[in-house]
């Protein structure tokens, strides 16, 4: 079996574990290096662009029409060339990007709840934790992006 296959198998197992219970990743206690340094790890292989994070954020913060705490940006759609590297069909990725207004749901996390976008994501594609811990998960599979919106 090639390395590529190992990675796919590992990531398959990795996904299989993603349930409601594991959306907030374990993070180290009392680590001065990670204090206040929380982020969002977003799997844009599986973000479907459903806008759930956008509306969940908006309701949580009561942002008015025209202002957002997170937005789904698009890469594509454009036609790839069949048979060449990168696969066939279309390139079309949806990538949620926190805005300047993202406070990582400070009020929620203070009450022990995970951020609303993480809680509601229909594809289980957003994880919340310390940058350090999320970075470890990031190397487990490609097509992820790690956002560090602010020191909380």
């Amino acid at each position: 079996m090639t390395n590529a296959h190992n990675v796919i198998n590992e990531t398959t197992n990795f996904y299989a574990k993603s349930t409601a219970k594991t959306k907030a990743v374990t993070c180290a206690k009392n680590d001065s290096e990670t204090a206040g340094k929380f982020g969002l790890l977003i799997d844009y292989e599986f973000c479907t662009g459903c806008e759930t994070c956008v509306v969940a954020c908006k309701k949580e913060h009561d942002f008015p029409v025209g202002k957002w705490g997170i937005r789904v940006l698009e890469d594509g759609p454009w036609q790839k060339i069949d048979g060449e590297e990168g696969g066939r069909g279309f390139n079309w990725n949806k990538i949620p990007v926190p805005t300047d207004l993202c406070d990582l749901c400070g009020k929620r996390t203070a009450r022990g709840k995970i951020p609303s976008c993480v809680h509601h994501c229909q594809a289980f594609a957003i994880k919340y934790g310390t940058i350090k811990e999320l970075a470890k998960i990031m190397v487990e599979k490609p097509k992820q992006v790690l956002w560090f919106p602010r020191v909380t």
Partner: protein
Amino acid sequence: MKSAMQYKNDLGKPWRYNEDEFEVIRTSMWSPPGCHPVGCGLKLYVKDGVLDHVEGDENHPVTKGRLCPRCLALKDYVYNPSRIIYPMQRDPADRGKADKWQRCSWEDAFALIKEKRDYLAATYGPECMAVLSGTGRSGGIMVSDMAQAVLGTPNACYTQSGYACYQPRSAACSHVLGAYYPEIDYAGGLEETYDNPEFVVPEVIVVWGKEPLPSNGDGLWGHAVIDMMKRGAKLISVDPRVNWLSCRSTVQCRLRPGTDTALAMAWLWVIINEELYDKEFVDKWCYGFEEFAARINDPEKGMTPNKAAEICDIPVDVIYEAARLYAKAKPASIAWGLALDQNQNGNQAGHCLLALMSITGNVDIPGGQIIAEIDPAPGVAIDAKSQAAALADLKKAAFSADVKSDNVSKDLLDDSLTTTRMEVNLDKADAASDKSTAEDAARPTRRIGWDALSDELKQKTIGMKEYPMYVNNIRNAHADRMFDAVTTGDPYPIRMAWIQSTNLLAPTCSAESDKWYQGLLKCEFNFATDLFMTPSVQGLCDLFLPLSTCAEKNDVSMTHYFGSPVTIGAINKAIDVGETKSDAQIMIELGAYLQSKALEGMFIDAEDFLNQRRANVAKMSWAKLAQKVNFQRGVNYRKYETGRLRPDRLPGFLTPTGRIELWSTAFAANGEDPLPYYSEPAFSPYSSPELAKKYPFILTTGARTYAFFHSEHRQIPILRELNPDAMIEIHPADAAELGIASGQWVEIANDFGKAKFKAKLSPIVKRGVVQAQHGWWFPEQDGNAPNLYGVFQSNCNTMIANHYNSKLGYGAPYKCNICSVVPLKESYDTNMSVVDSKFGKLVI
């Protein structure tokens, strides 16, 4: 600093609990607002009787806390300033005048309905009344009850031409498969879902004419497809248009719109001729396979991959690759969607897809297609001896030449049915023991009033003469014949309409919606049950009865309307708003007020209705279901072996032959070809080349958005801003030829109508095809007639003609029409600050 252990969830919480200053009510949502009955888990946070906010409920076995934007915006719907929460009345002379409504009491409203109904029924016969309904609301599935039990007219009607939503497929299910809709297995009915040892992740999921992620069609949780992709499932996409799932598919078949039957027949050609089918299953459980194979190979009516490649406009290699990948995958499932219904060839497309699922042995197996178990008839138990005898009979019957003769077999079918049919009193008995069709058996909630109608009245159902299978199967008047009745008085005029849970003038459902409007204006009295002043109510009605949202009533959500063994959920009431009532309350209270014979003594109140007709399917009382919130039905696989697909508990399927009828005795008995065939869409470059010169684009409509459910949610600013304008997708090369810039408004037109859309230049549509959004009206615009909130501005349904149905009356060309595209100079862009200023400030 927090460790993960400190992040809490609400797993294991009871159905009601307190958290800080809130009472939290766990519920399983479905309608209103309209949606499909997934029954997504919600926690409603209530303070002092007011809904403060909502959150996804982690306890839901399928959704696990996940929610879509529409439920997240529920509060903005419940307390929307434009919502109608008291009954209102208006003089029929003032239809279309927005400021003429007067608040009235429910008593006044019921008295007015009684006066009109008693007079019209006595003068013209009860059939002069119609109840018109739509999709996605809990009232929709009660349309027959409203018409036949409450008003006493046979004319319940879903107004979409050819009932081109679900019914072309589900008619094929009832008659070919002898079971209700076979959904993809996503372990929703099993404890621990994907981790249940009985479940097998499908190797391949075919997504055919469906966008499950935004649509959640009929209760399939769309993002379950993502869950299964993460667990290794590969995808095949069959869709003219590129979508998110098709980008991640191993094979994509981007066929020409409306040619699905040709493609499915070509897949069957490959699978049959390369002997990739499950011979044992076919031999044991399928009826008429040789005839079916002969049809697929027939030089004239058959379909080779080369012929299909030409018809469907896709490379022939793709057909071979897709068919082989599907047939060799064990297990494999097909998520089949609305696109199969929305052409005249829909019954045949459904027939072919059922044949694909069947001959590959994927019916009722883990990771394949799941079907609902039905209850045994009273007193019937599984008995090994009679099962063995029945199996032998099955074999014999299956090879009987009589059944296959051309002049089928009316006698044989009747004989066959009388052996299983039992007379039951539906008022008293468990309705599940009624089994005139597989659909009835799987969905024991239907036909509350039908059996109380006289035979004479049943025969007067509009469309009974022309389309008896359609009318009898769903106890609905035929939509296109109802259009004739409303617009021309043929076979007789409609004088009163109850417009319930449908905004039929908006481009959601009815075809030639502008003509429906003119026709319904002729009625003497119209009334509506709804939540918002839609253009349909504003233009046509004299009385508005306000409905409760799902936060304000007790009700039940059931995947596939009970037709699929996934979940049954309790919709738990959390708040009161105004003087609204639920559909069930209105049915029972108005029925009592009108002294309905059909409903007499049937239900004490709405809870009694939930006990008898909803929670009973979960084999528990409403009160118990309310506390459980979600009930997983459990799944027994391969039920054809154990008798659990038939009320008599004999093995096999609920068809006259007891097998999956690849050669359909029911189609034959109703004058339709018992085998599938391809027919070209009525309007296409091939069937109407002269017209196509004038209208060179293929027009498809109805692609889903996350922001809206059909015509709903346009007045919710935070959803509207996700999709402010009525959009049409056009290929950039086509746009360049026509001089259309990105974001420019265009007018599309054909011989029947025209509509304006904002152009989105995108390569996701094929060249020569445009995709227009449906459902548009503009609640921020002037409501007075003739504007009616701009309902005819971007109304693509004015361009769909009635009466282009299959021989049996099903299907219509909503997704395979033709049009011209002309750029406009004007802009019709929505001003979001106007929408926000009108609807942004909630009324609590």
